[in-house]
């Protein structure tokens, strides 16, 4: 089971924090910075993902008061806002969907077992998972599929309404039945 505070509606938050091997920070950042966006992103192959990000955290910021902290290791933060009822199936989607990118990214992190063994990959992600304290989703009941299909339907309806303005009732009805068959 995922942490109960990671859930809002059917939406889940995932926060994974892993330590970056000493000296690997720049290579990892370069790799992530060079990833393509949109359909070229490896995340485009990980279904159920609304939003996700990787962030290299070099060190924490000192706010001028209190004792100064320094991270022993730079951290790789991965977060995702995804659909689903359980974390394990999403982690498996992440492993298979990211493909080689998973290893290209997390092999820069200490203790990463590789993506070859599904159980070891999931265990690594779970061990480094930080539960949300508070998670907000503006449309938490809607999956990625719901969102994309409703956006497409809305566009289709606008186009239909424009193209059928002024049609007599019988023509309007048959145009509707053709466009939106039952």
């Amino acid at each position: 089971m995922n942490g109960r505070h990671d859930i809002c509606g059917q939406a889940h938050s995932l926060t994974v924090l892993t330590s970056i091997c000493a000296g690997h920070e720049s290579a990892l950042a370069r790799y992530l910075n060079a990833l393509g966006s949109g359909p070229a992103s490896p995340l485009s192959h990980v279904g159920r993902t609304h939003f996700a990000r990787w962030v290299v955290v070099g060190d924490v910021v000192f706010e001028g008061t209190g004792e100064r902290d320094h991270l022993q290791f730079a951290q790789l933060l991965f977060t995702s806002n995804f659909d689903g009822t359980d974390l394990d199936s999403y982690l498996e989607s992440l492993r298979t969907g990211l493909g080689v990118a998973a290893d290209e990214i997390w092999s820069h992190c200490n203790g990463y077992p590789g993506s070859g063994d599904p159980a070891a990959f999931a265990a690594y992600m779970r061990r480094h998972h930080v539960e949300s304290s508070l998670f907000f989703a503006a449309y938490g009941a809607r999956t990625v599929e719901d969102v994309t299909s409703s956006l497409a339907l809305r566009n289709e309806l606008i186009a239909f309404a424009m193209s059928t303005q002024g049609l007599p009732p019988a023509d309007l009805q048959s145009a509707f039945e053709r466009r939106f068959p039952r």
Partner: protein
Amino acid sequence: MANIEGKATAITVLTPVRRGGPILLGVVFWAGRNLAFTLAKLETLSFIHYARWTLIKRFPDGSDGEGQRPNHTYLFFESNFNGTWDQYIDAFSEIVALRMKAIWGTSLGFPGPLPVEPFKQYIRRNEYVANHYWSAYPGHTTTEIISAGDVATKFKAFHEASAGLSPEAFDAAYKAFLTQVQGNL
């Protein structure tokens, strides 16, 4: 580096929490999870897709142990929103000032949500730029998504209810449906 993907913008912030802060934040987060009105205000901002807050007490250090425990607990905040960074912080500080105070009031160096300039400087100082950012629907705002969802729900009801109607009755039902959803088209 990519904090922007289409219309979506990412914010990632880590702030050190003063001693005793995690206990207070526990209460704040409990209220956020259990008292509907606390997060309802975020919905009225209408440009936030997803946001989360998390307390980080330990950072992984590659060992099998519990990791590095720094002097402070850190408050992690991420948001996925549409619009510009400045608009977002402006709206946050003006519309949800009290909630901002409740959440970041325990963070070291927090100047308060107003005036907005010192607050913006604080966020900039503690913000990290995403190295890679992904959105499944980068071309759409929160409002568009919620509107389209509402249209889809009403369309489904209309689609089911309008089966087998006479042309005249269909025409009337269709016009009523359009009137119902026109604000969201």
